């Protein structure tokens, strides 16, 4: 050893030199390192072990602190490990545990060296090898070295035994079969009188149980003993973690442990243990009221503490309680709210979560108000956290917490205006979703959308673009609720819209199209009404109701009230009528209703805006001015949409200017074409859009004889090297809808069908017949009235039949409030689909390794026959079916337990005995394999016998019972009655 000390000082100096040198380098550190690395590469090839290990030591240092690669030196590491000197070996093992991993190819070369060191008489060498193995063990290493580890598990040297326990976790992880050999000894260490061993063993079981708690239920008595007896806080914390897992599987266990845990909680002075008790109670023992009450008292202590750590943990514990005992949160409301303005962002975040947990339908508006005020004051990051959690809480489960949607929609508008708001996407989704699901809120929605749209300042904020896009879509789709469509049109076409991205501008333009159609329709309808009323001047009111009742059927009373004022154009008109009307509208049903819908509300806006010739022609001019430049835009979406509108205006203009000046007599004939065009477009746009279930596409049956893949193959042949645009900004269906519009425009004259979707479908069918090869089936039935990308894509996947179904559902549900319209402020109907709207959660399957491991553990604990190693190795179906059997056994347990209670007086001994007998068979197996261990084995058995002398009598009996194989099976599934 004298020589090594000289060498050690020598190499230490060398590493010291490097470190000192590095510390002197203010600049050029990398040059220094690369020079040092050059030296290392040279030195490490040296045959002198001292030089070699010194070089490796330096390399390890660089790897650990400077993150330099050392995988190239793997073979040298193996060589240094093989050195006979401890000092060198130490360097080698450190290097190996730092740099080796499953992919290291020289790994197998160290198997023999590890075995040699594991059986060394020098306990430090053994512990080095164990350390290293705990970091790098692979399947092969673990398999080959399991016998040695088994021996070390009962070593008389504490240092070695402790580390052997520590290494078990890794060995079980990579080589589940080791359980059969080592598990029993591991359990014995659980009962060791030495707290060091218990601590290490409990740590291992805590990790094992966190992956698969079910397998360790039979060990509950041992854990319970530790929980009651141990004085070591580390051990107690770990045992409590195990119980937190176990009691979820075995409720009767909870009854037993709740008392000692409460005791620990009350007695301990250590905050860590106290917190662990609190956490165990709130997570796993939440149904024990008195325990929870105690825990909440402790949580309160944590909350009012000045230490931010305790405060944070208190909040965290409270948020776990919140799901089952909301009163605990409400009790500490002030502290929680105050924590929203804490200096620590983490604490703020926790308290925000808690505040959101307190939200109910009665206080949602107050809490949101408070939070929005906080959001205005706080930094951008936390502001967005607040907004995000408001959105997700309010939107959860189809807005179940919201009763007053008018309020919520205006809150959304307000949130959009908060300067730091970056939640555009969420707000966008909710705007549209609410629009589609909640009919009653649409007037307010349009008002909020209008306020957002006309504010030119908002256009400059890129985070708000998505919200604006939703606002534009809403105002176009539900334009009939707008108080002033002209103003809306101006907002949609204002010059600053050029700041928006093309896809959002496209939404703007299409919404402008919808608004235009609405205005024109209202205008023509007004003309018609006036014309017809002037004809029958004798009985004014009669004439009007006649002309209207041609189209309008059952809602006589509703329309009459609005028509009467309609003709008294000289003011004095009650402004509340429009809103009343629009409230009535959603209660109607069917296509008929849609027509009525448009008409009545056009009446409503008619009085206010009076669609005169001037206003209409101004409108047309405005559109032409704004969209003219876009018709040559490079953005295909913009160009296409702009041209659509311009073409449409062209068509209308030919008819309107002439007709405007002509007398009443020619009016109807001349304008017939124009108004028909507009009627058709109007019908197209007024078709209701509903939410689409996520699973809608799955429900579409694949037509017979449709070979999707075949078609695509053909396409590939034809297109050859043309690359298909995979991430284009528009969907496949969009150009289609364009085409449809074009088609319906061209075929106006020969219009027979009033239902646009049927008509376009038939046209499409023809088109498809010709070009069918290039179309997927699902796009054919989309409706031209939608162009908003998300909605459109959903629709695309849909099927006409499905659409109809949805519509039926919609109308059915919208009928409901009609039956009881006299509620003061009923919660509006929120349309939700029966299935499919929820995202299904895929259950996480444990990977095969864990499966194997728990299977093996169950085998050992429940005393099933051992399966030959070879068959267990492959994660085959056999093992999985085996596992299923086990689970079944587990489920059956309670009843068996009850039976056992009846006929067995001391069944708690039954289980350990079955395990013991299991172990004995293992011992036998091992004896076959390595006869050399024979003596040791026996010796150990004797030792055990001595240790457990107090239980000897019972065990004897048990052993006798266990002798027969039948008995083993019978007792296999017994969980200690101790639980009862």
């Amino acid at each position: 050893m004298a020589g090594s000390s000289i060498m050690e000082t020598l190499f230490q100096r060398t590493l010291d030199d490097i470190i000192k040198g590095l510390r002197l380098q203010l600049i050029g550190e990398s040059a220094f390192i690369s020079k040092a690395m050059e030296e290392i590469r040279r030195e490490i090839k040296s045959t002198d072990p001292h030089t070699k290990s010194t070089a490796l030591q330096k390399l390890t240092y660089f790897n650990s602190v400077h993150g330099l690669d050392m995988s190239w030196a793997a073979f040298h590491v193996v060589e240094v490990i093989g050195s006979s000197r401890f000092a060198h070996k130490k360097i080698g093992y450190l290097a190996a545990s730092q740099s080796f991993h499953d992919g290291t190819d020289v790994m197998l070369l160290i198997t023999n060296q590890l075995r040699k060191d594991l059986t060394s008489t020098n306990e430090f060498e053994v512990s080095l090898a164990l350390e290293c193995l705990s970091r790098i063990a692979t399947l092969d290493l673990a398999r080959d070295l399991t016998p040695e580890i088994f021996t070390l598990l009962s070593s008389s040297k504490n240092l070695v035994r402790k580390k052997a326990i520590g290494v078990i976790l890794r060995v079980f992880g990579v080589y589940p079969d080791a359980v059969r050999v080592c598990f029993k000894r591991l359990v014995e260490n659980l009962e060791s009188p030495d707290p060091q061993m218990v601590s290490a063993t409990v740590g291992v079981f805590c990790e094992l149980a966190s992956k698969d708690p079910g397998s360790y239920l039979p060990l509950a008595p041992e854990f319970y003993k530790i929980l009651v007896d141990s004085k070591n806080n580390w051990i107690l914390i770990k045992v409590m973690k195990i119980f937190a897992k176990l009691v979820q599987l075995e409720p009767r266990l909870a009854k037993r442990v709740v008392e000692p845990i409460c005791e620990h909680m009350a007695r301990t002075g250590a905050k860590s243990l106290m917190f662990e008790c609190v956490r165990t109670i709130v997570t796993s023992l939440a149904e024990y009221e008195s325990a929870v009450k105690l825990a909440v008292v402790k949580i309160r202590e944590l909350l009012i503490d000045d230490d931010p750590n305790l405060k944070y943990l208190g909040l965290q514990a409270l948020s776990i309680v919140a799901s089952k005992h909301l009163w605990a949160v409400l009790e500490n409301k002030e502290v929680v709210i105050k924590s929203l303005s804490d200096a620590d962002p983490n604490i703020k975040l926790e308290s925000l979560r808690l505040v959101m947990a307190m939200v109910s339908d009665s206080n949602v508006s107050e809490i949101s108000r408070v939070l929005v005020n906080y959001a205005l004051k706080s930094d951008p990051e936390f502001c967005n956290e607040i907004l995000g959690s408001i959105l997700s809480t309010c939107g959860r489960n189809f807005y179940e917490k919201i009763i007053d949607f008018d309020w919520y929609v205006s809150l959304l508008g307000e949130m959009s205006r908060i300067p730091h708001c970056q939640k555009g996407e969420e707000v966008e989704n909710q705007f549209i979703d609410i629009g589609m699901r909640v009919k009653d809120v649409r007037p307010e929605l349009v008002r909020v959308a209008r306020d957002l749209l006309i504010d030119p300042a908002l256009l400059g904020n890129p985070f708000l673009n998505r919200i604006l896009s939703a606002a534009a879509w809403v105002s176009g789709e539900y334009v009939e609720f707008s108080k002033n469509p002209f103003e809306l049109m101006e907002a949609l076409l204002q010059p600053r819209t050029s700041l928006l991205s093309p896809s959002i501008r496209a939404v703007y333009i299409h919404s402008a199209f919808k608004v235009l159609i609405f205005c024109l329709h209202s205008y023509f309808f007004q003309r018609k009404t006036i014309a017809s009323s002037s004809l029958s001047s004798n009985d004014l009111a009669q004439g009007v109701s006649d002309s209207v009742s041609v189209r309008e059927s059952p809602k006589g009373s509703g329309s009459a009230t609005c028509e009467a004022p309609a003709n008294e154009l000289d003011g004095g008109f009650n402004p509340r009528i429009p809103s009343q009307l629009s409230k009535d509208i959603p209660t109607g049903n069917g296509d008929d209703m849609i027509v009525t819908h448009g008409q009545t509300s056009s009446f409503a806006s008619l009085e206010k805006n009076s669609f005169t010739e001037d206003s209409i022609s101004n409108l047309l001019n405005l559109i032409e001015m704004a969209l003219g430049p876009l018709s040559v835009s490079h953005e295909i979406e913009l160009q296409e949409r702009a041209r659509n509108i311009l073409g449409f205006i062209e068509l209308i203009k030919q008819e309107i200017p002439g007709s405007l000046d002509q007398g009443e007599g020619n009016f109807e004939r001349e304008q017939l074409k124009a108004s028909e065009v507009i009627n058709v477009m109007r019908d197209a746009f007024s078709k209701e859009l509903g939410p689409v279930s996520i699973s809608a596409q799955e429900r579409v049956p694949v037509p017979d004889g449709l070979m999707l893949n075949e078609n695509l193959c053909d396409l590939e042949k034809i297109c050859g090297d043309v690359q298909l645009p995979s991430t284009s900004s528009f969907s496949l269906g969009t150009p289609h809808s364009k085409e449809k519009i074009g088609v319906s425009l061209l075929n106006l004259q020969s219009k027979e069908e009033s239902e646009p979707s049927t008509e376009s479908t038939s046209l499409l069918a023809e088109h498809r017949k010709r070009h069918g090869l290039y179309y997927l089936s699902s796009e054919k039935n989309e409706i031209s009235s939608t162009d908003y990308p998300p909605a459109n894509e959903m629709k695309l996947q849909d099927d006409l039949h499905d659409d109809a179904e949805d519509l039926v559902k919609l109308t059915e549900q919208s009928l409901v409030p009609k039956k009881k319209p006299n509620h003061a402020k009923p919660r509006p109907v929120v349309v939700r689909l029966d299935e499919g709207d929820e995202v299904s959660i895929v259950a996480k399957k444990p990977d095969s390794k864990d499966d194997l491991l728990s299977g093996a553990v169950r085998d050992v604990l429940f005393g099933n026959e051992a399966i030959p190693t070879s068959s267990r190795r492959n994660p085959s179906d056999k093992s999985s079916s085996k596992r299923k059997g086990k689970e079944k056994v587990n489920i059956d347990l309670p009843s068996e337990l009850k039976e056992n209670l009846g006929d067995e007086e001391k069944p708690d001994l039954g289980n350990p005995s079955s395990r013991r007998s299991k172990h004995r068979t293992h011992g036998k197996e091992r004896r076959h394999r390595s006869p050399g261990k024979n003596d040791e084995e026996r010796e150990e058995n004797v030792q055990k016998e001595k240790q457990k002398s107090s239980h000897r009598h019972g065990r004897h009996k048990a052993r006798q019972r266990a002798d027969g194989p039948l008995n083993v099976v019978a007792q296999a599934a017994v969980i200690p009655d101790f639980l009862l």
Partner: protein
Amino acid sequence: MGIRFILMVNKQGQTRLAQYYEYLTLEERRALEGEIVRKCLARNEQQCSFVEHRNYKIVYRRYASLFFLVGVDNDENELAILEFIHLLVETMDRHFGNVCELDIMFHLEKAHFMLEEMVMNGCIVETSKSNILSPIQLMDKTS
């Protein structure tokens, strides 16, 4: 695995010791250390010592110029980890006598050795200072 990694970083953000209990490539380590150091060193004394990062927690504590950062699973007991950090510092203090950053730099191996005595596979296996230090002292004596 309870403890995933233990880092010692000085206040300039330079790593002084890094011990990982699961294998990460050098790039992953570098990225991880960068992210964590950025996150934790920006926090002040009045803020709590727990930071959520990716899918685990970091418990950290500052001693003079050195930050001790421990990455743990989510259900690990934060306060116990703080105590563990303190135990580690006390142990080093007993061995080196008034331990400082330089001690760890120049005796990295010993620091690793102490950690290995205390933690295996991410489980804390030893919490007694004398038990941790006795093998090291023995080795010092024999060499």
